[in-house]
């Protein structure tokens, strides 16, 4: 079983602060996706990274895929209350692109 460990598990910050969430594994993935889930809703896809070392930006969110495709990070600049939610990374194992292994999750709360 391929495990994806996320850190930190919980993060409570004030509006305007920066933060980084990490997603680590000992396994190599063909691609990695990041989702955000709000209470009472299903996860919503934010981004997919495919190439080792790839960096993608989505407004104030910056996603990076590790060179060895075993880890990833999500950096949020100037967090806003609307960023509050559960952030999940999910990796597609080599050879089984249709199946995702989800990380343990990072719960972010941004307060005014």
């Amino acid at each position, binding site marked *: 079983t391929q495990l994806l460990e996320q850190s930190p598990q919980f993060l409570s910050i004030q509006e305007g602060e920066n933060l980084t969430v990490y997603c680590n594994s000992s396994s190599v993935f063909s691609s990695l*996706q990041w989702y955000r889930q709000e209470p009472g809703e*299903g996860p919503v896809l934010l981004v997919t990274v495919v190439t080792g070392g790839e960096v993608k930006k989505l407004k104030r969110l910056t996603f990076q895929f590790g060179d060895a495709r075993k880890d990833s990070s999500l950096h949020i600049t100037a967090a806003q209350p609307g960023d509050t939610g559960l952030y999940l990374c999910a990796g597609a194992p080599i050879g089984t692109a249709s199946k995702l292994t989800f990380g343990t999750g990072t719960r972010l709360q941004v307060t005014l």
Partner: protein
Amino acid sequence: EAGVAQSPRYKIIEKRQSVAFWCNPISGHATLYWYQQILGQGPKLLIQFQNNGVVDDSQLPKDRFSAERLKGVDSTLKIQPAKLEDSAVYLCASSLLRQDLYEQYFGPGTRLTVT
């Protein structure tokens, strides 16, 4: 484009009772997934369908859980009999192969409470 639909949104049952959940995926998505999500954790895959065939059900507790996707579109997930530890959110997702990637789209989930 309509998203993944699930019903019911909430269900409360007593242990040893049975329950069924329904999912309608995004039109044209051949792959359908059922996940179980314990509060605060990441989703755990229960079963994956490709059209109406099962691709992976290795983590489905088959003594009490069953799922079907008879016509390759809608799907149902059933639990019989339910246990206290089945309390969770059950998520349905669908995906389409696009440029060698499967990006999954999730429904809102069904929150099950077993008392």
